[in-house]
């Protein structure tokens, strides 16, 4: 792991931990109890904050030759092409979550499958099969597991 990424991670975690600590320490005490509802999250937040700072210090003090020996896990991780693809998948997940209650499962999942297949580099045959796959999944959940899935709704339009 590079020194810079550890420094950034440490700072982000210290901020997040500090924020959780402040939020939790403002919670009201529980009368008659030795510890209130904020004790545990405040402790966890403070610890995370301290550990984030420790990570920063460790990264700062790390000898330069260790910086150069980044793990193989980092190789190619900086390739913007693949990072964008991953970001697109995450965006697609968010869009699916937003549209699911309105478009229903069948429409959303068919569109989701088709677009994610395009992003992942699938051929046209795979994309053409997406309605069938959606129907199969829909059948498994609704008929076999008796899960009620969202249906297409015109309310939004």
């Amino acid at each position, binding site marked *: 792991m590079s020194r810079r990424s550890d420094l950034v991670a440490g700072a982000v975690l210290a901020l997040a931990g500090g924020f959780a600590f402040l939020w939790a320490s403002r919670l009201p005490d529980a009368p008659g109890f030795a510890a209130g509802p904020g004790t*545990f999250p405040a402790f*966890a937040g403070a610890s995370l904050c301290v*550990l984030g700072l420790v990570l920063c210090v460790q990264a700062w003090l790390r000898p330069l030759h260790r910086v150069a020996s980044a793990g193989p896990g980092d190789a190619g991780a900086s390739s913007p092409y693949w990072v964008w693809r991953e970001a697109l998948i995450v965006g697609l997940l968010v869009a*699916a*979550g937003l549209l699911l209650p309105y478009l229903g499962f069948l429409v959303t*999942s068919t569109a989701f499958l088709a677009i994610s297949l395009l992003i992942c580099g699938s051929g046209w045959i795979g994309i053409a099969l997406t309605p069938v796959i959606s129907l199969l999944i829909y059948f498994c959940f609704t008929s076999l597991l008796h899960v*009620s*899935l969202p249906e297409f709704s015109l309310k939004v339009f």
Partner: protein
Amino acid sequence: MEQFLSASHLVFNVQTLTTILVASAFGLFVGAIPGLSATMAIALLVPFTFYMDPVPAIAAIVTCSAMAITAGDIPSALLRIPGTPASAAYTDEAYAMARTGKGGLAITISLVSSCIGGLFGFAVLMFSAPYLSKLGLSFSSFEYFWLTALGLSCAVLINASRLTKALIGLFIGLLLAAVGTDPLTGTARLTFGSTALLGGISFIPAMIGLFAIPEILRNVRPSKATTIVPVERNPWAGLGRILWKYRQGLCRGSVLGTVVGALPGAGGDIAAWMSYTMSKRFSSEPEKFGSGHPEGLVEAGASNNSALSASWIPAMVFGIPGDTITAIAIGVLYMKGMNPGPQLFTTHAENYYAVMIIFVIANILMVPFGYLALMLARQIFRVPRPMLQSVILVFCILGAYSINNAVSDIFIMIAIGILAVWLEANRVPMAPIILGLVLGPLLEQNFLTSLSITGGGLLGFVERPISVGIAIVTLAMWSVGIVSSLRSRDDPYEAATRNIGNEAR
């Protein structure tokens, strides 16, 4: 005997047996696909267990995890890509055997060793758990507090080479566990005004976010071209002779795996690495290791599955998970009202025995099913990756949604998934996060109860003999962990498991 008969009825029925078969096939399929882990298979399976009775639900988890870990050996041997982290320890060895025309034999060695190791771990679980549960019945909140602290400590200390990051993972897990309504006063904690978070972070969306989303995103990148090594016609030829020759290693791997597996936080991955290293150290022909020598395969194969069985000891007896898989299983047990802990042996003993029977079935089925997967390996490897990833993502959405029929759970899954991707990129281990998430409420509840009993004093935590004992063990482990953390800056296990995702690309 009566309880055992009731347990048999719970297992030998159409629903449970069908579940075992389907979960086995699913586990074998996921395990055989390079880059997809057993934990991800379990995380995807959990939403389905929600609609099952308790025993079939646990049967699905036990069989799926055993099959996935075993099937992970197939791409190890034939593609030199570990199917699961547990197979990474002996991938080069298995592949070297395959290159000499003995790929099938390498896999059957793993299958049978895994079966023997798994049954050994099961036997230890079967006989030790009832005795430990009797001890557990005398535990109060003080002992449970220390036991939970011990479990969390093990999960952190197992990553001695990156102690700070493991601790960060633990406290992230504890913070996630604190989200929701406080059980004591009903105060909303860390909900940021969201009503969706009042009930806390739902377990299943969190699991899917932590384990499935990062793996799928990692696999979006194209895999390198791989050549499948052909398998010999009779992969069983010479197997008996090899197992007999290395019977000592087989026993040693089974025992070591059981010990490592019983430790909270450790699991089959670490057990396999330790066993492979030990096998080389004790071997009379260490120079042959790395050139397709079966000795290490026998020992490490036995070890990873015995660890898998043994990880259920702390899970069943004390409700403290042994690894990430049992952490998920404990969540399922709670969801099904089959709360793990010593009471399980007095109030629901038939459920305990049912799980034991399932262990035997899963371990025995491993051999024929594993052989079937070996025969179908070529077809499994040819499944188009984009299609597989896209369908898994749809299952992720459905799994997160269907638990509470709430879209908010999909967003919780995505948020935790993004967090997990970022943490993985920064090499923060996942096991402490999941253990923190599962054990956080238990730790807090026992801490607050104990504090109420002592009237706010901390000395009361070390006044009872068993709690002192567990406290001393916990502190001793921390001392050893800190010293070894200062000595080792990087370990081969971590380096190799870090490679799995890359090799699968």
